């Protein structure tokens, strides 16, 4: 039923600073992400989230240990191309990831680099723009779009290379509320409707609540791993300064005042419904 897609074994990563000092970023990560999972990756700044994510598509290679993607070892040079094709990346700032003069040329950039025939590229570009809801903008210059629209074009570009998995590294941190809503809705669709494996790195506990599984990193290790209802209300999070989802924090304080609310209320909608049903 659940097929392992990404596996890390005793993964360590050490950066070397300009003055020659060694800075350990990952200290022994053993992790399996299954095909079709929606995983949120949270943790304080500097905990190793982005470093870990860059191992998932061979942008970084292990200092020690192994990373396997769809049965391929990322440190084997023969596999790098295939690994990168399996796992797409979407970063924080869409402006750094858009390269072409029109939306559709931008989306075609990835498949063109893979040497795909033009008719197939045409089909993939059209499909990808349809999935992210940007078909009407295909001839627009990307720099004239809103932040949420730009980030959806970036996502379409990642989709056009037909990955099995997309890693999103804080894709909403530069967007306004509407942009965040658009991008999160798109991320959920890719997972729910296309069955893509999704890894979402975020600083927002409210965004992490959307995932099926939440991994918490601290000091280069995975310190918590489980469904959002269990992880996002764990006492251990307090020590990391990550806070709780807003609704969970309100529910905790209401419970302390004697309002009989269950745990696991992670969204404002769920909390409002629970309050009405008491």
């Amino acid at each position: 039923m659940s097929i392992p897609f990404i596996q890390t074994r005793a993964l360590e990563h050490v950066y070397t600073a300009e003055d020659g000092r060694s800075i350990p970023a990952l200290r022994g990560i053993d992790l399996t992400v299954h095909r079709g999972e929606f995983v949120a990756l949270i943790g304080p700044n500097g905990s190793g989230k982005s470093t870990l994510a860059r191992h998932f598509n061979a942008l970084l290679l292990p200092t020690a240990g192994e990373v396997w993607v769809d049965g391929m070892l990322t440190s084997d040079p023969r596999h790098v191309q295939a690994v990168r094709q399996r796992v797409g990346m979407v970063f924080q700032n869409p402006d750094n990831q858009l390269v072409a003069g029109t939306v559709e040329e931008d989306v075609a950039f990835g498949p063109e680099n893979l040497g795909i025939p033009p008719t197939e590229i045409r089909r993939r570009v059209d499909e990808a723009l349809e999935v992210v809801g940007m078909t009407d903008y295909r001839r627009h210059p990307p720099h004239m779009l809103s932040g949420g629209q730009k980030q959806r074009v970036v996502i379409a570009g990642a989709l056009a290379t037909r990955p099995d998995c997309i890693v999103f590294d804080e894709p909403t941190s530069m967007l306004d509320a509407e942009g965040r809503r658009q991008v999160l809705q798109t991320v959920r669709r890719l997972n729910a409707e296309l069955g893509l494996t999704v890894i979402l790195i975020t600083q927002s506990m409210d965004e992490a609540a959307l995932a099926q599984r939440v991994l918490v990193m601290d000091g280069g290790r995975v310190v918590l791993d489980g469904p959002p209802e269990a992880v996002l209300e764990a006492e251990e999070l307090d020590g990391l300064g990550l806070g709780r989802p807003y609704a969970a924090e309100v529910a905790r304080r209401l419970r302390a005042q004697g309002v009989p609310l269950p745990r696991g209320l992670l969204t404002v909608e769920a909390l409002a419904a629970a309050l009405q049903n008491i």
Partner: protein
Amino acid sequence: MHIRVESLTHIYAQGTPAERVALRGITLEIGPGERVGISGPTGSGKSTLVQHIAGLLTPTSGQVLLDGVPAHARTPEARARRHQVGLAFQFPEAQMFELTVSREVAFGPRHLGLNADEIAGRVRWALEMVGLDPESFAERVPFALSGGEMRRVALAGILALKPRVLILDEPTAGLDPRGRADILARLRAWQAETGATLILVSHHLDEMAGMVDRVVLLANGQVVADGPTRSVLGDGYRLRAAGLSPPPGVALLEALRAAGWPVRTDVLDIEDVVSEIARWFFNHKDTKTRSIINRSF
């Protein structure tokens, strides 16, 4: 410093096919020492407006007066006033280039023509203000610091100019929750110590609520709301109409109100949100219990 924005209109690329109207006749005043939030969806004109207040743009029409002097004028008086307005763009650390933290923070003060002792004093003060120990950070390489530390260095570089007006565009973007809370607390302390004007541009209305006394809402280049923080941010309907998401507490109370709970919805602090819900919950429970008792007799 007294800031007066008069019928300010800004049109980018006027007369070309890419022409875009960013501001449409904005008028507002910000008094000395005010703490003001400016919000609005992407493209509403927030960044254009604050660049005008910093004197970085020339108005298409209208003007910005800093203590009565047009902000963009090429006169010594205007230049002196512009020097008292500090503007931190989003991700200000992207503009750092010096090789040590102390040189980076000293960059601005050096260009003000201050003497070495005064500069050194300001560097120490500014680093302490943002929570970086001058002893251990002064000689470090900015680019080897963590994201949160780089942000602090960049902000220290602006505080070292001792601005009378500080404009911050999304100062906490990309930081983790603890880093966000800490930077905001330090900026509040800086404002309380200096009595300077603070203008905070943000999409994060929840963060803004604890930082400012007044909120200006922009949509489509116009001011659509300008008033006390609680009345602007507590009005979920107006925020949605302007293309913004209300703070989560407001959304929660609105959902309960829609379900028939007579709760106030203009409540911003989480502690007050909890009290408002608890108060009505227990009232509601009492009436339920009473009606059960009445029926059973």
